[in-house]
């Protein structure tokens, strides 16, 4: 299906963006985008439990913990 290829390309693009971005908050947002698209792919693979867990934990709590840690340290990667 064409939409699965588009979603996978978007997920890999977000991953590559997390590599190249120098602003760490933007890199964390890219990581959250990877988690979001992965949660959608989990649902398409007929695994609703795992999709719920990935959405709540990966795109929610993990991002929050990263942002708190970046606030306590530096924001830009030199």
């Amino acid at each position: 299906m064409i939409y699965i290829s588009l979603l996978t390309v978007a997920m890999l693009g977000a991953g590559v963006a997390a590599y190249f971005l120098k602003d760490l908050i933007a890199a964390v947002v890219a990581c959250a985008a990877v988690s979001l698209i992965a949660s959608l792919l989990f649902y398409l693979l007929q695994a609703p439990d795992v999709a719920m867990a990935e959405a709540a934990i990966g795109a929610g709590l993990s991002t929050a913990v990263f942002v708190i840690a970046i606030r306590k340290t530096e924001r830009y990667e030199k």
Partner: protein
Amino acid sequence: MKAVLGFAALSLIAAVLAISLSQVPFGVDRMEVARYYLENGASDTGAANLVTSVVLNYRALDTLGEVTVLFIASLGVGAFLALRRRGEGSLPPASLIVRRGSQFLFPLILIFGAYIFLHGHLTPGGGFQGGAVIASAFLLMFLGQYEYSLSHRPLSITESLAGLTFVIVGLIGIAAGGYFLSNFLPKGSLLSLFSAGVIPILYVAIGFKVGAELAGIVAAMLGPRGEE
């Protein structure tokens, strides 16, 4: 330089992975043990969600190990961040919409999380997802209310009691069924709330434990304003 070398080495590894994955055809029926779990899961455990019957009945010892790992991680975070200098720049007070919205949404999100872990044996969900949703509710309160702080003792007491409940139910299983974590309560009828034996009790314990732990981790990382 390191990036180029890393890229070359990883391309080799990715090529090897791709060759070996091409021998694993996508979407082919390979189940052997899982076929037994699918066919006998509903009659052995009484749970309608078959993933729950695998997590909390057939492989319950692995879930105990996971609960232990999460406990140690939460312990580590609390231990590392316990001694910190004060005055690290707390967050500014939130705007009116965030304050009022978080006060309104907090009990609703708690009820939603409790619904998820109570119905873990009937619908997709369970203790881990419900616990994560409850921890998100606490995170919303931290972001919305300026002076909100979560005191450490009730959280750690909840977490320890919930973990203890899990182990005690398992030990009662030895007396009642013959092996650790056996399903000794009556199975009930499929698709009703009070069914599946001991599984709802275990999931409630896991829901409380994971919720308290993840909220404790967020509170410990926020620092002196987040916990007292």
